[in-house]
């Protein structure tokens, strides 16, 4: 018995030292020592992206989600240095966390486009049709002054209608003017931005192709060189830049694997487009379904206040335990401190992100840890009052309270398991901290306080009934 006690004492001491290493700055050199705070506590933005199927991609498979996730991460975090978190949370949702960002408008803009880049060339058949229609329109327009002079209202209206119709036809053709080529954003290795060479105060986006893309680009420009036909650069089906290729490229096309989009960009736009292109195109569009931001100081102020208030309350609890339950209460206080330390160490070790609901779970688990001790001590007092010796009373206090502690804690753990399994973000955070807390409290409230208690009464000066129950002491004397 005594040997077992010593072993347990050593174990508790070891755990406490281990936990101290984990939670203090000492553990920082091993990447520990820091607890992750959720954005609701430290300020920042959280975006929930909804991934929607399109005609081309009708099934959102895990592969699609993976692709979307990596594109989103690439765009938002091109250098991969910031603490941005991008994770898939359900089969159609992606969660993005931007610490310290108080208005995520830049992120929203970055994600608002699929950013499918492609290079197009004029369609020769359409080109011929366009020329025909243009000539027809020209003829109609020439007739216009004559008709106006003739003052024949009916004829004028008819002519104007015809002109409108031709213009419409031309516009329709214009839309089909370009045909796709096999050169797309997939062929890029890099995109950047540079000050425009042609327009003052404007910016260009510069592109770099991979080997295959460079070859395709050379071929495309070669075929267009000197014809006066434009090369169209399209983003999400909209033309962003059109350029003709000079005669001098007729022999080899534009080689070197680089191109420039001169799109009259502002600096911000050029930067964003370069980032979008570098990150690759999204296989399906995403919609920002939810935004939550908390200003950095707002989150911190609020949490600091609440932590002070909560800690103040806990100190009152510790005092209450000491005053009401005397020696056992003090031992429970020690066990409770061990409990807090071990729980925090576990949060750090498991990488738990602490959010508001997480704190709620922690508060509840403290309540349960205290409750276990209260159960034990109330039972001990009962046994004392029924006339048992101190040692036996403590023994049976622990023994008899055990079944109710076990049952109540296991019911809570079951609920935590279900909540973790079925719940979403907030609820999960709650389930994790509560679950960890309850599991640890089983150890500290039972094993830890029991060991400390028996160690304490092995000292003759502490083996006094009045240290356990004031009423009983009066009865005895």
């Amino acid at each position, binding site marked *: 018995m005594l040997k077992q006690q010593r072993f347990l004492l050593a174990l508790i001491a070891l755990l406490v030292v281990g936990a101290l290493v984990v939670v203090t700055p000492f553990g920082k050199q091993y990447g520990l020592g820091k607890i992750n705070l959720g954005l609701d506590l430290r300020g920042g933005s959280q975006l929930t992206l909804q991934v929607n199927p399109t005609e081309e991609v009708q099934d959102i498979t895990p592969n699609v989600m993976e692709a979307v996730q990596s594109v989103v991460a690439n765009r938002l975090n091109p250098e991969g240095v910031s603490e941005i978190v991008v994770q898939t949370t359900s089969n159609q949702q992606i969660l993005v966390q931007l610490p310290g960002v108080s208005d995520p408008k830049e992120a929203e803009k970055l994600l*608002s486009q699929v950013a499918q880049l492609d290079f197009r060339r004029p369609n020769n058949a359409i080109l011929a049709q366009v020329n025909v229609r243009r000539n027809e329109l020209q003829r109609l327009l020439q007739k216009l002054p004559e008709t106006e002079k003739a003052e024949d209202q009916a004829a004028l209206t008819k002519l104007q209608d015809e002109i409108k119709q031709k213009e419409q036809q031309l516009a329709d053709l214009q839309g089909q003017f370009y045909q796709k080529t096999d050169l797309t954003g997939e062929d890029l290795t890099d995109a950047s931005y540079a000050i425009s060479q042609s327009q003052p105060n404007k910016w260009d986006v510069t592109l770099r192709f991979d080997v295959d893309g460079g070859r395709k680009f050379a071929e495309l420009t070669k075929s267009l060189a000197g014809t006066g036909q434009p090369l169209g650069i399209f983003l999400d089906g909209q033309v962003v830049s059109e350029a003709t290729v000079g005669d001098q490229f007729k022999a080899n096309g534009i080689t070197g694997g680089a191109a420039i989009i001169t799109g009259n960009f502002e600096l911000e736009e050029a930067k964003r487009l370069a980032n979008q292109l570098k990150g690759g195109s999204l296989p399906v569009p995403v919609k920002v*379904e939810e935004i939550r931001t908390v*200003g950095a*100081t*707002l989150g911190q102020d609020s949490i600091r206040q609440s932590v002070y208030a909560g800690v103040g309350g*806990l100190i009152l609890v510790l005092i209450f335990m000491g005053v009401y339950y005397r020696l056992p209460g003090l031992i429970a206080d020690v066990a409770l401190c061990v409990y807090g330390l071990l729980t925090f160490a576990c949060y750090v070790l498991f990488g738990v992100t602490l959010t508001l609901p997480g704190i709620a779970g922690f508060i509840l688990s403290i309540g349960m840890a205290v*409750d276990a001790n209260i159960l034990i001590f109330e039972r001990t007092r009962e046994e004392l009052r029924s006339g048992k010796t101190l040692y036996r009373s403590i023994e049976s206090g622990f023994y008899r309270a055990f079944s109710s502690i076990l049952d109540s804690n296991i019911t809570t753990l079951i*609920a935590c398991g279900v909540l973790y399994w079925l719940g979403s973000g907030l609820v999960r955070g*709650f389930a994790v901290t509560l679950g960890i807390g309850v599991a640890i409290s089983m150890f500290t409230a039972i094993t830890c306080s029991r060991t400390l208690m028996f160690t304490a009464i092995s000292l003759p000066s502490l083996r006094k009934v009045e240290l356990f129950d004031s009423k009983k002491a009066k009865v005895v004397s």
Partner: protein
Amino acid sequence: MKLNLNQQRGMWWTLSAALILAGVISMALSWNQFQAPLKPGLDFVGGTRLQLERDCSQPQNCQTPLQVADIRKVLAEKNLAESNVQIIGQNSQGIAIRTKPLAEAERTQLKEALTAQLGKLDVEKSQIDTVGPTLGRQLLASGLLALLVSFAAIIVYLSVRFQFDYAFFAIVALFHDVLITMGFFSILGLTRGVEVNSLFIVGLLTIIGFSVNDTVVIYDRVRENLKFGGKRSITATVDIAVNQTLGRSINTSLTTGLPLIGIYIFGGETLKDFALTLIIGFAAGAYSSIFIASTLLAWWRQRQERGSYNPPITDSSPEET
């Protein structure tokens, strides 16, 4: 102090029924007004909520308190006249606006217009929430599902460790606590405009965790007394069990209540409503464990005994554990 629970159980039941009824009436009125039993917050109806505060470190920026009318004018210009405006913060230097869901461009425009009207804003203290209308429903659905499945799991566990009727009445007590808390916040919603958000669901879950804990402790004592208590009637057994655990019930409520009350009174805005949810729910949980779950169990067992021909009391003691 000794409680004669089962003698007065009619009174306790009436009290609970009255409280629940008041809540249900309030929920019905809420339904009329908000199409929901409690006043739903942003999380459940969708929309954009902007909380902005003037940057008072700028000279001459915080001279006058903000006026709702000025803000409304800006909103009307942006075709957002339907929005809800509130002046908040110390010295009325902050605003909270709720609108339909705003896309990035609309939101930025609105912020610019407001900056023009109010002066420079403190980005560190701003808060922006946008929730799509479908997301809230998803959250609610997944929360409710999790709740029901955990109820089922608790019933199974308690049926194995105790017996089915214990488990059943424990769940009845849980419903009691949830209903009272919801009713309370429904009344607050009607009278003081308090809204519930997803954190409220987390609060309900916490209450359930705590309340089942409380109930199990009393049931454990009933089980033990039935095993060792000889031929006492079930009502007497339950009364004794509750009285034996009463000290513990009071002390535990006190020790969990203290930090919560601290947070409610002195804590930050974000946690206030949450702390209140827990305080109400924990109080209801402690009450229902002592006065409802135990007396219902006694009443049921009494009925069973009267109904059967030869009622051996040992029948109701659980299997050896």
